[in-house]
């Protein structure tokens, strides 16, 4: 049974597009990254899972339960970190956690205290005195403290310093080791690359790609930097090579973007004096941006 299953999930706010025809399965026990620029529909999808908003059409199933009909049971078994987290300003961090724990019931107090320690939550300070990052840490503790089967985290590391981002990754990895599922949204790509096994990319409300992080990397477009003796090939000559999608020449250095095999590039360069070849491992960001551009072309 998948932890999350979306079938042609569609949400419109009046005439405004939320998400359109999203089909997706997140398997139990995996860490799934949901990627997309702001306004793409990530938060809309997530809030549908918790029945905070209702689908215009299509359906969402969470832990095998219908998101509308069995919402109470789902919310009991899920931990949720909202994007743009808001907490009651007049409470202390501890009071917020106590309130939410009582609202929920079944919180593992020892684990909660452990999380408070690891995230260095300033539990006696008022929420109104906490920085964005410190509020976010309270949000993370409340999402994890009852050891839910499924964690739905909307931009979990937003506002956190690198040290606390690291703690977040560890806590997520531990949850996965315990067999729990993590569904997280992000627009910070290296983060997803690092902790997720699969990613879904959403753009303008439509899911345009679902793939394993590894396979996405294999399909990667590489950036190759070449330094030449004399003569330097022209930009047009480089652009004509099979697989090259983009080329630029500056002084004695050329930069090309190449997809798939490098064979044709290497063979074509054999006629020049090549002083240096440097290839850059494509960050997921590049892949993402390319998919984004492709999507834009489709739409255009």
């Amino acid at each position: 049974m998948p932890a999350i299953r979306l079938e042609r999930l569609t949400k419109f706010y009046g005439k405004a597009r939320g998400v359109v025809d999203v089909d997706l399965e997140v398997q139990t026990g995996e860490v799934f990254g949901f990627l997309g620029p702001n306004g793409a529909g990530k938060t809309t999808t997530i809030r549908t899972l918790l029945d905070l908003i209702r689908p215009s059409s299509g359906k969402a199933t969470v832990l095998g339960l219908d998101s509308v009909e069995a919402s109470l049971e789902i919310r009991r078994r899920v931990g949720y970190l909202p994007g743009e987290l808001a907490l009651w300003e007049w409470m202390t961090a501890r009071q917020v956690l106590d309130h939410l724990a009582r609202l929920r019931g079944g919180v593992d107090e020892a684990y909660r205290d452990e999380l408070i320690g690891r995230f260095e939550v300033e539990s006696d300070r008022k929420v109104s005195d906490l920085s964005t990052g410190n509020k976010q840490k309270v949000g993370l503790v409340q999402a994890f403290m009852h050891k839910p089967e499924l964690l739905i985290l909307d931009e979990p590391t937003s506002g956190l310093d690198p040290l606390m981002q690291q703690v977040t990754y560890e806590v997520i990895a531990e949850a996965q080791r315990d067999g729990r599922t993590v569904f997280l949204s992000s627009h910070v790509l290296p983060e997803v690359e690092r902790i997720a096994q699969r990613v879904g990319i959403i753009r303008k409300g439509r899911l345009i790609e679902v793939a394993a992080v590894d396979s996405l990397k294999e399909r990667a477009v590489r950036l190759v930097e070449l330094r030449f003796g004399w003569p330097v090939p022209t930009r047009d000559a480089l652009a004509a090579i099979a697989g090259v999608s983009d080329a630029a020449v500056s002084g004695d250095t050329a930069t090309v973007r190449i997809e798939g095999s490098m064979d044709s590039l290497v063979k074509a360069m054999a006629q020049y004096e090549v002083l240096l070849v440097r290839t850059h491992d494509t960050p997921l960001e590049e892949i993402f941006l390319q998919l984004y551009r492709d999507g834009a072309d489709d739409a255009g």
Partner: protein
Amino acid sequence: MRAETLRRVLRGRKKSLLGWSIGIFGMVLVVLLSYPAVRDQPSFGDLIEDYPEFVQQILGLGEGLDPTSPAGYLNSQVFANTLPIIFLIFLIAFASRETVGEERERTMNLSLAHPIRRERYILETLVAMVLGGLLLAVIGAGTMMAFGPVLDLGLPMGGYVGATLSVFLIALVFATLALAIGAATGSKGVTFGVTSALAVAMYIIWGLAPLVDALRGLDKVNPFFWGLAGTPILNGLQVGNALLLVAVIVILAGGAVAGFRRRDIGV
């Protein structure tokens, strides 16, 4: 399960409740302590008798009370105007804050992601509002019960309680309407606009009804009429009228639940 949302709402209103409690205590005390001066000044009554009938009605003297008698004085200074207005402002603001305000500040989003039914969330909020208002009612009535005998007003204890409770119920009708509108629309403008316009209109109609035959029929749908009819300050709580107001409140609460249950929560 404990009523955790109710507790949270009341704790959040703690400072506000303290402020309003002090205010209502002070207001009632000043009015009470001023009474001996009014009583000894017959021209006060003559003055009011010269007022138009509309003014006499909204001073709570419509049933022929003498403004210098203890009951007439308290009606004209407290129950027919000041107290309903205080309750209305406090309760409507409360209703709006805990529906529209929680939603706008996005804390409602977090609450409702927890295993609590929307029905329960909105009803606990309503009960918190009722308890908050009752606290003010108890302080208002309590102040009168404590100082009335000291000043020799000679009014029945049941009069203080009944009149305060009646006025509280009038305001609660409008506040529950505000809660229902806030829960159903999430719009502060609509909530305040509709509720306060309706409250002001009903108040004016109640004031004008004795003068304008065409308006008299509207008494039947006017919470001010049902709350203030029968002079509760003299005769105690008019149980039938009070139950009618409670029934309206229950119906509006049902509307709040229905409006809140199926809609999208905003971020």
